[in-house]
């Protein structure tokens, strides 16, 4: 494998392989940004991977009060799933259990789309007959009486079939501390890119997986080629100095958004440099035959 070195950080000449996904977005508002964040965090908890969580979800950014429909501070959440039916199921369950329940919250469409998913149209039945439909221009809302007043929820939100899931960066470093520092700056840079999320804890995943396992019925297992403790025992992808690998997985509403996020992450890691951060950046793929979207690291360099 060829390598490039930029400011002392080695970049593998490889690519991230990503898949088409269905995605939607909602905008959650509350009386304060603290409670908008709380509802968004609760809704996107346990949504790291479609393998075990049904969907991948995360906070795509905060929206200033002047830009939300009800002029209260808001947080935009993106949800990704492998099918429209699963996305609808996850959206409905998560908004019902995590946003409807959060004090003072309201929930709006976070995406325009020709195709739509049911939002308030599904949750209105919680109102037990006391729900109120309101149309203002082209917008349709449901008002559902709850114990702190009303939960206001837009009837539908948009669906996109152009979304991409599985963009990724493998960050390889000499120590746990420096590798985490590199992953943190990359995660922070990616958080500023619109229309993307990094669904794992704090945007970072330490247990990258490979497809399959030696055990029957286990769909994914540890990516042993990148486990530093197995470096001498298996065919490894790591060099002698590497002691830690962290991964950032990126889902985006468009392929361009994923590429922009990966480029922002790479730039941040290079900016931090090999002494304080990572010695090497790589990316995960399956040989290029499974996923239609390929993001070559050499095309993403600053």
């Amino acid at each position, binding site marked *: 494998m060829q390598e490039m070195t930029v400011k002392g950080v080695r970049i593998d000449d490889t690519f991230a392989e990503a898949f088409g996904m269905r995605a939607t977005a909602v905008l959650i508002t509350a009386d304060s940004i603290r409670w908008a964040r709380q509802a968004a965090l609760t809704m996107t908890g346990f949504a790291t991977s479609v393998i075990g969580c049904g969907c991948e979800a995360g906070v795509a950014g905060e929206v200033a009060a002047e830009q939300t429909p009800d002029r209260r501070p808001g947080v935009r959440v993106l949800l990704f799933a492998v099918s429209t039916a699963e996305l609808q199921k996850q959206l409905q369950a998560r908004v019902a259990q995590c946003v409807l329940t959060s004090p003072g919250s309201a929930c709006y469409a976070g995406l325009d789309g020709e195709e739509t998913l049911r939002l308030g149209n599904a949750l209105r039945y919680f109102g037990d007959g006391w729900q109120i*439909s309101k149309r203002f221009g082209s917008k349709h809302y449901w008002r559902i009486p709850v114990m702190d007043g009303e939960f206001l929820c837009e009837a539908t939100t948009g669906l996109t079939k152009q979304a991409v899931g599985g963009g990724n960066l493998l960050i390889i470093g000499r120590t746990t501390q420096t590798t985490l520092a590199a992953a943190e700056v990359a995660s922070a840079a990616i958080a500023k890119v619109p229309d993307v999320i990094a669904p794992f804890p704090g945007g970072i995943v330490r247990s990258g997986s490979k497809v399959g396992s030696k055990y029957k019925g286990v769909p994914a297992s540890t990516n042993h080629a990148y486990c530093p403790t197995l470096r001498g025992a298996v065919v490894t992808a790591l060099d002698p100095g590497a002691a830690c690998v962290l991964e950032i997985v990126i889902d985006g509403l468009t392929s361009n958004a994923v590429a922009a996020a990966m480029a922002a992450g790479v730039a941040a890691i290079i900016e931090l440099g090999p002494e304080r951060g990572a010695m090497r950046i790589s990316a995960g793929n399956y040989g290029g035959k499974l996923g239609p979207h390929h993001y070559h690291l050499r095309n993403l360099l600053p």
Partner: protein
Amino acid sequence: MNPLVLTLRERPDQRLDLASLVPHRLAGMTVAEIEKIELQTTRRRVVLADVFRLRMGEAAHIRIEASSNRLDRIGHEMAGGEIVVEGDVGAWAGRLMADGHLTIHGSAGPWAASGMKGGTMEILGDAGDRLGGPAAGETAGMRGGIVLVRGRVGERAGDRMRRGTIVVEGAAGPYAGSRMIAGTLVVVGRTGPLPGYLMRRGTIVLDEGSDCMSPTFIDCGVHDLVTARLTAGFIAPYSARAARLFSTPLRRFAGDMAALGKGEIFTRP
């Protein structure tokens, strides 16, 4: 933009039916064809050229000048474009209007915006009884669009309204929002007795309150609701006065309990 201008020569001696003078019907017609359009409502035949001076222009923009309250059905089934009227209009202005803008720089007669489905109607003067209401035999009145009245409105504004928004900046007569099925009616001025009479669902917002609230509306307390913010945001581009009404918490009355009882009247606390 070069509007098609119709100037009334003098107050007509019979009521005239202007239903055919809407952009989508005049589109593609020649001056000669337009001048021959019949407008009479009695046995005495009247063509357009008899009562109007016509200055040809784009049919999508119609101006009616020196109008009179004897001109009925202006903007009937209007499907787009714009009609601006200088002066008063008669009954049924904007009846079944589906899209476009109808502006009346004067007062409108009864049944303005009757059965309106969409678009925007602005009346700078007053409006008569049954604004947005249904014609005899119809089960629903206004079912979409937005109506703004800068002056006062008569009895039963928003009667049997099903959807859409009516904003009245002046006072409203008795039974405002009677038999409402849904939709939103905002009255900035004082409202006559029994607003929301027999309403089933829908929202009425009263700034100065009513002369006499029906006892079948039940006080549900003072609330600061997100829906008020949305309503204010939607109305603000049309009427800053009406939008200001939502800046403080409002008292909610549920009713009419003599009907379905799922409607509401908001008033100042």
